[in-house]
């Protein structure tokens, strides 16, 4: 039996162990899950070291004919990583804020530019141009998008008895938006069921193929 065949049989056994969860939580399911977590941790380590850490170290700290500045820059991520570790200490935890601040600064900028150029501008452009292509459906899409946004609009007025209420127009349009959100979530749920059904049937056919030798 080749190594590949052994791997396929191992996959068969682990699939059955995972599916045993249908009968309730049991030790076979747990063994498979712990193997999964262990393998994932191993593969993440390998990919992180080979694809990120080693190229960075080779390009900065261990690079031939490089100046002291590049080597110093090469140390920065490891110093930031060490500072993050200090967050666990009550006395030195504040030093970890420097690393957090750097990551949040860059992360916020990336998220901001990504949200504007990747989501806001393209979606606004396609929604507004949709009305020109098909008036009825385009208008329905425009109504759906705007009412969904109004549903998430939480501004309101305080009434004399102290409770905060949204205006009548915002409430009515918000109900329409809620309808669009429910339809969308229903569609996402149906998509999730169809996806898991497809994967489940693929696993069942894999099990049958192993048993029948196909």
């Amino acid at each position, binding site marked *: 039996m080749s190594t590949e065949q052994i791997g396929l049989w191992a996959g068969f056994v682990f699939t059955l162990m995972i599916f045993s969860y249908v009968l309730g939580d049991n030790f076979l399911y747990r063994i498979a899950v712990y193997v999964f977590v262990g393998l994932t941790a191993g593969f993440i380590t390998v990919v992180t070291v080979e694809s990120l850490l080693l190229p960075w170290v080779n390009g900065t700290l261990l690079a031939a004919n490089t100046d002291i500045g590049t080597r110093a820059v090469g140390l920065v991520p490891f110093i930031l990583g060490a500072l993050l570790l200090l967050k666990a200490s009550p006395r030195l935890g504040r030093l970890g804020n420097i690393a957090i601040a750097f990551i*949040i600064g860059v992360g916020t900028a990336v998220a901001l530019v990504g*949200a504007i150029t990747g989501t806001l501008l393209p979606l606004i452009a396609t929604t507004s141009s949709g009305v020109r292509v098909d008036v009825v459906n385009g208008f329905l899409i425009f109504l759906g998008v705007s009412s969904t946004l109004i549903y998430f609009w939480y501004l309101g007025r305080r009434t004399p008895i102290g409770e905060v209420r949204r205006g009548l127009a915002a409430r009515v349009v918000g109900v329409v938006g*809620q309808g669009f959100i429910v339809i969308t979530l229903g569609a996402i749920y149906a998509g999730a069921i169809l996806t898991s059904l497809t994967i489940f049937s693929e696993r069942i056919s894999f099990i049958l193929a192993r048993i029948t030798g196909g």
Partner: protein
Amino acid sequence: MSRLGAAFTTALVIVVGILTVLGLAVGEGLGNLSLIVQTRGLPVITDLFLQVVVVTIATTVIIGIINLLSVHISRITQRKGGWVYSVILVVSALAVMVITLLERAGVLTGRPSLSAILLETVQISIESALAGLVLFALVYGAFRLMRRRVTWWAMLFTLILIILLLGALPLPAVNGLASIRNWLLAVPVSAGARGILLGIALATVVAGVRILIGQDRSYRE
């Protein structure tokens, strides 16, 4: 001293964030702003910032995995409940690392490689089985939704769910449902999804701007 440290972290977020935004967003054709960004080498600085953040996060991932292994090794040495599962986890993780190391060192030379077999036949098999198992939870969740409390929204949700599932069947008897399904996906679902995505993007912009102008400083806690 602590105030000075807090001011320093806020200043760091603002400076690093604004430099990164300028380096990422300002391209050609913006007149003097483009000229300033290009001549000051901001795209290069932004690229360096991104690399540093990626490698820092990679370092923290490795620290996290070392922590995971050390927690399980301590469970094994102290013979705590479920220590056998910890042995399985540690052995699986170390097996992948050692096998990959031996392959890179040229000791294991089989084709396809043992690490690829482990990934494709064991890892992906378990992943797929777990994803397939989600089916039971999803169907049970939909069943529970109607059993607990029947509301108009729950009925609309279930109706859409049934139409979309039946419409996906490749049967001539449900051809009518298939066209309703296509319209639902193209118009109301598309509108709702766009609304939700736009809401998330607007919230991201608001939160991002608040952080970059120093209004939101919750990261200092």
